[in-house]
């Protein structure tokens, strides 16, 4: 479904991603972990289409199409979703109106009729229940005055409404207390589907306790340096990222020695 081949990306001349390779198949849940500054969020934003990043090398295909050639809106309508680490507040745009526009734009793109008011309302109610979202939030402007937890719930709610093929959750656990984390994780789990892949980007193990990824990758200096099953996350939690750094240092040293 998603195939990332040797992606290099830079912002303002600074190289952040240094050759990432990753294959994600439908139904799989992948987690990318890594220390601060390793390039996790950059990867998410590059996939979502943020234009500030310059792709200097590599390619990404999504369901067989060249993802990097597509505008952010086309990526979304093709089924890519990103839950942001810092969802932006947009005063003056009502949440309901925004979500309705988004849902219908996607339907239009796929040649479907726009949802009528009744069907839309029904769908919203159903999806709001997934993340225990308060209905009063819908009449407010997007994320305006929402608490950290409400913002993250709103992201998962939007994911539920848009039913993506691939959802990227960028540090969705950050800033959440245990209860909010549980609610968000429950929502994500209910959205797991054999046709839907999920890419979780996180710093900590705790979200993964709930989401149980199939694969865990460690990102360091813009490159995936280790991949494994969910036990890798536990190992990281136990030993910290330093053990990865040491290991890489060691490898580099060995390579240097050979050379």
């Amino acid at each position, binding site marked *: 479904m998603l195939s990332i081949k040797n992606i290099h990306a830079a912002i303002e001349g600074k190289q952040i991603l240094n050759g990432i390779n990753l294959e994600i198949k439908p139904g799989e849940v992948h987690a990318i972990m890594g220390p601060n500054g390793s390039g996790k969020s950059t990867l998410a934003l590059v996939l*979502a*289409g*943020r*234009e500030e990043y310059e792709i200097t090398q590599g390619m990404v295909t999504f369901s067989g199409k060249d993802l990097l050639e597509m*505008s*952010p*809106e086309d*990526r*979304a*309508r093709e089924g890519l*979703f*990103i839950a*942001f680490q810092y*969802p*932006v507040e*947009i*005063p*003056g*745009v009502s949440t309901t109106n*925004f*979500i309705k*526009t*988004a849902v219908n*734009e*996607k339907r239009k*793109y796929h040649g479907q009729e726009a949802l009528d008011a009744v069907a839309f309302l029904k769908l919203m109610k159903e999806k709001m229940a997934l993340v225990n979202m308060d209905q009063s939030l819908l009449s407010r*402007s*997007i994320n305006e005055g929402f608490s950290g937890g409400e913002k993250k719930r709103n992201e998962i709610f*939007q994911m539920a409404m*848009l039913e993506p093929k691939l959802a990227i959750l960028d540090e969705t656990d950050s800033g959440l207390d245990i209860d909010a984390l549980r609610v968000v994780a429950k929502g994500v789990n209910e959205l797991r589907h054999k046709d839907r892949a999920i890419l979780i980007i996180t710093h900590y193990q705790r979200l993964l306790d709930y989401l149980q990824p199939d694969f865990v990758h460690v990102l360091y200096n813009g490159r995936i340096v280790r991949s494994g099953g969910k036990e890798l996350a536990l190992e990281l939690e136990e030993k910290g990222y330093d053990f990865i750094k040491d290991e890489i240092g060691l490898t580099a040293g060995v390579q240097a020695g050979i050379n």
Partner: protein
Amino acid sequence: MVDVNHFKDRFKQLQSASPDGQIARIRLKGFDTFSKTGLPAPRNEEWKYTSISGLFNDKEYHFAADDGQPVFTRSDLDAIRLPGHQGANELVFVNGWFMPMLSAIRSPDDQLTVLPLEDAAKGIYKKQIKEHLGQSSRYIKDGIHALNTSFIYGGVFIHVAKRRELQYPVYLYHLSDAREHHTLCQPRSLIYMEEGSKMQLVETFKTIGTSDSFTNQVMEIVVNNNALIEYYKIQNDAANASQVSTTHIRQIGRGYAHAVTITLNGGIIRNNMNLILEAAGNEAHLYGLYMLKGHTHADNHTLVDNREPGCLSNQLYKGIVDDNATGVFNGKIMVQPQAQKTNAYQSNKNILLSDNAGINTKPQLEIFADDVKCSHGCTVGQLDETALFYLRTRGIPIENARAMLLEAFTEDILDQVKPKLLRKHVKQLIREHLSIKK
């Protein structure tokens, strides 16, 4: 250069045809000023960013009088009628002259009186005319304002009776006939709100025909104790329709004013919005939204003159400027020495959408009292890229996302348009302006 002599002949004609005492005297004073100052040039600080003299280059405007009574049909009029007109007092001006025959007064006589200025000057409202017509000349001494005063004729006097709250709003429609000639319109009005009265006043402008029109308007509003005026100006005319529109609100009693100016399309537009707070404890709120594209130039000059203690005023003007359009905001707050405990706030926010668009924004605070709260702020920026990206990642195409954000930017001004039908209408105009489909 503008030929003062051209206006001189006209002025003489008007004075000899209509030598009524009071108004003729005001005109004469006006023409004196105009003859001395001519049209404002950019060296005049108040006109630094807006040049209107070019509108008179190699161009002769017809005056209302040139064509006698220009005839518009009902359907011409229908094109400009605002929603809710069935329940409104509709006052029609053609080429600057009030046309009683085309107008409809729906409020009862004991609430609202509408008279040609000349008639009002002779009858029971003589005193109000004498005391209040032409007061604005004390505040605006430039030639273009004097030009309107030189030609006060065919204007209107609107009187709202004591403790009467008009159920029906007053709509003013200004039609310019530019079918055969360039047309100069100089509407003049005096509005007198008695103690405890309430009125919603809405005005809009329409040029019919493809020649140029230039409207040079002066409106003087007098607000007494406990009276409340809501005033809405909607400017959405042709690209070659220019105007200088001066609204002068004097709150001589402790009253309340709420004014919203919406500017969408036009040529060169200059709005002077003057609030003179002449009684203690007055309250005034001024709002403006200008959404400019093409080559439209819109200049909003506000003045809030605090002359007595304890007045509160708030100003919020917002602008979106695209293409080669330019905007100006000049907000002047005066606090006179005796006006202690003044609260005066001002804010101007702008979004520039193109490299060729421009905005000049200038707060001007002149404070001569020491116990006051005044603030001002202005911003000029671009559309929030992060917000735009957020919307796009949800599948909303960039044009729609942009329009959504721009519409959101206009929201707090739109909310200040209190009459529901009018608000809906303005919202629709904004959406059309942003090319948002229903």
